[in-house]
């Protein structure tokens, strides 16, 4: 039984179709990352779930309750859905403690201690409560925004690129802290992001969006290894896509014979290899290429190899055994290639 389910949700802004027939489900306690470039419709989807916007058509159900369908629209203040936005959207006229306590009733017994608990829970010193939000760093502001959303024990937590305004180190630590916290609290969560590593490490389900369409939903590993098409494949990581002929249980392509996961014979297949599956070897057997570019980037080198057949491949190679520009190289393949089903 799915906890959150969206079916056939569409939304237009004038001539622009922001969402096209999106359906997705999420089990209770699940963690879904919605991944997509800007303009792909992911934030619109989140705003529809939060109730800030109404879809043109489609239904949204949460825990068996209809939030939106053709006849009704539960306003956001009755949904009990928490949200943390890109830059926190803290109320500038209220102190940190008043921000956290904003959703708590004023007469609530133990309100002050509850606010302190929440601040401690998100890893902040309760003494910060009397400060004003602009006295906090970006990471601290995001933690306050999270505490504020957690105060009402939301049924569902929406995170709208909450880490993207933070610098790289802070982003990783804040993300881990938030992730652990939500997991411990058992709160069903949706994270919207355009950062693929963030999506893969945060979620147990990933949905990839592009141009208002939900392209594919699945586990991070499943989507990474077996994407439905090239868009999904490149959304989740660097991809080497080659045309191939499948025969005798192998793919025949520019890299020679490669093992595949689907052995059905086909003439016009396309196969996917992740760059880390391809190792450069001495040019002994099989296809051979020439290194045309080798950029040093510290621990690895970004190597571009032009196959004698004409294809150019981009891959990473440990910088300790990186080939020199102009070197002749051969290839060995780790594991199976994935065949796109058309």
């Amino acid at each position, binding site marked *: 039984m799915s906890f959150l389910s969206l079916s056939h949700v569409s939304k237009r802004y004038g001539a622009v179709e922001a969402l096209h027939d999106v359906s997705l489900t999420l089990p209770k306690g699940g963690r879904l990352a919605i991944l997509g470039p800007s303009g792909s419709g992911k934030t619109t989807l989140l*705003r529809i779930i*939060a*109730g*800030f*916007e109404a879809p043109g058509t489609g239904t949204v159900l949460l825990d068996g309750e209809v939030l939106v369908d053709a006849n009704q629209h539960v*306003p*956001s*203040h*009755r*949904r*009990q*859905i*928490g*949200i943390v*936005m*890109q*830059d*926190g*959207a*803290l*109320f*500038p*006229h209220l102190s940190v403690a008043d921000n956290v306590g*904003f*959703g708590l009733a004023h007469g609530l017994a133990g309100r002050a201690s509850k606010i302190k608990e929440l601040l401690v829970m998100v890893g902040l010193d309760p003494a910060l409560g009397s400060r*004003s*939000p*602009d006295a906090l760093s*970006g990471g601290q*502001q995001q933690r306050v*925004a999270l505490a*504020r*959303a957690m*105060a*009402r024990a939301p049924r569902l937590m929406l995170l709208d690129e909450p880490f993207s*305004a933070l610098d790289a180190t802070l982003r990783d630590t804040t993300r881990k802290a938030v992730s652990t916290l939500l997991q411990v609290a058992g709160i069903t969560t949706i994270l919207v992001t355009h950062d693929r590593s963030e999506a893969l490490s945060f979620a147990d389900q990933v949905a990839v969006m592009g141009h208002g369409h939900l392209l594919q939903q699945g586990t991070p590993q499943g989507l990474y290894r077996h994407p439905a098409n090239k868009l999904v494949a490149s959304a989740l990581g660097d991809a080497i896509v080659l045309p191939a002929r499948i025969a005798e249980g192998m793919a025949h392509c520019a890299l020679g014979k490669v093992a595949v996961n689907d052995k059905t014979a086909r003439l016009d297949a396309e196969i996917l290899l992740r760059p880390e599956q391809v190792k450069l070897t001495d040019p002994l057997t099989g296809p051979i290429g020439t290194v045309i570019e080798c950029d040093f980037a510290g621990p690895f080198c970004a190597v571009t190899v032009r196959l004698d057949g004409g294809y150019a491949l981009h891959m990473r190679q440990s910088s300790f055994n990186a080939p020199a520009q102009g070197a002749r190289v051969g290839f060995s393949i780790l594991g199976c290639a994935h065949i796109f089903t058309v």
Partner: protein
Amino acid sequence: MNGLTRMMAAVALLISIAALVPLGFVGWVGLQAGWQMVATLVLRPRVAELLLNTALLTVATVPICAVLSIALAWLTERSDLPGARFWAWLAVAPLAVPAFVHSYAWVTVAPGLHGLGAAVLVSVLAYFPFVYLPVAATLRRLDPALEDNAAALGLAPWQVFRRVVLPQLRLALCGGALLVGLHLLAEYGLFVMIRFDTFTTAIIDQFQSGYSGPAANMLAMVLVVCCLVLLATDAAARGTTRYARLGSGAARTQPLTPLGSALLPCLLVPVITAGLTLGVPLATLGRWLAIGGAGIWKLDEIGGALGQTLMLAIAGGALTVAAAIPMAFVSVRAPGLIQRVLEASNYIAGSLPGVVVALALVFITVRVALPLYQTPVTVIAAYVLLFLPRALLSLRASIAQAPVDLEHAAASLGRNPLGALWAVTIRLAAPGAAAGMALVALGITNELTATQLLAPTGTQTLATAFWAYSNEIDYAAAAPYAVLMILFALPLTWQLHTQSQRAAGR
């Protein structure tokens, strides 16, 4: 501080000292009179009555202006009201009608109108745009993410408005309310016409009925205290809370709330407001123009008043802007505590009622510079003191946009400091200076009290001519002057409107 800045600072200091003359005058008069005299002249029923009038007027007018402005601002900025831009412009347009023309119109429509109720009605209609403008601008710039978050935290729409939107409007409301309050203290014509006594009307009464100097001066002292109380209340009400948006990036554009079935009653709010604020004055003027026919257009007389007004407005405007340049320059280029105090003294002087400034100048010219009494020099000096803040605000903003690097570049290309200032900063600040000059000129065109008290005998401006005719109950003959004042002011209110629209990127 380089030589140029030091020179500017010296001039700014002199001008700030001059700006404090009216305050000094009030203090000096108090000291001179001695406690006994002050007590007899201030602690009397008449002063208590005037204080009560002023307090009641302020307490009634300001909240009504606030409520009306918030309602109109919400309707024009945040709802799907049809023709919202048009109604927004009509909410600013009443500023083009001088306050005393508002009450002239109402006295024509309802001759029995007088007392507190009438004073509140006409004051609200004449002054609410001072609150509407900042409130609408703030409402437009609010980040809707805050309201989204409040809704996600379980607040119903009305609670969101009360707990998130309204607190964000606080600075705008304070600023607007202060302006309205200061105008209520300073206004003369509006209240005389509907027979409501305030300190300003009483002071001019005293002054004109046989020049009762000490009595008028004591009333001016109480008036200045009222003015300082308003300024202090405003400073306290502003508080120290931060309202600027946190975080980076641009805010999402605001969704418009559909009015649905409430559309018709909502539409009545701007329609009725525009009817009362613009319809009544325009219809009245139209009626008097029709009644007066061609006979009221005494072109030589009107031309004379127009010429004198233009002369005073242009000379006063140019001089005020020139006087504001050093202060604006110093406060942008070398900000510091002393500079802030100097600047604040200019603003305080500018918030004093015209009648106080006029009395101070009368007092000083009569005592120490009699040849200057009732000459254009004195009246223009009064204009400079009264309208310096208007010029200062416009200039500051535009000088701040001319970076000092450009002046340095000009210096490296061989200009001396004054030459560089003139070639770069003054040129770049010219639009701001022009806007400031226009604001000052408009203020002078509609100025009544200081002009009446200080201008050379025989001076006739549009405002004083209008006032003279309407005092003789020759309302028809007064109408052309009112029309001319409104025509002068219209482009400026249009500019205020578009400026606030542009600030929000519309």
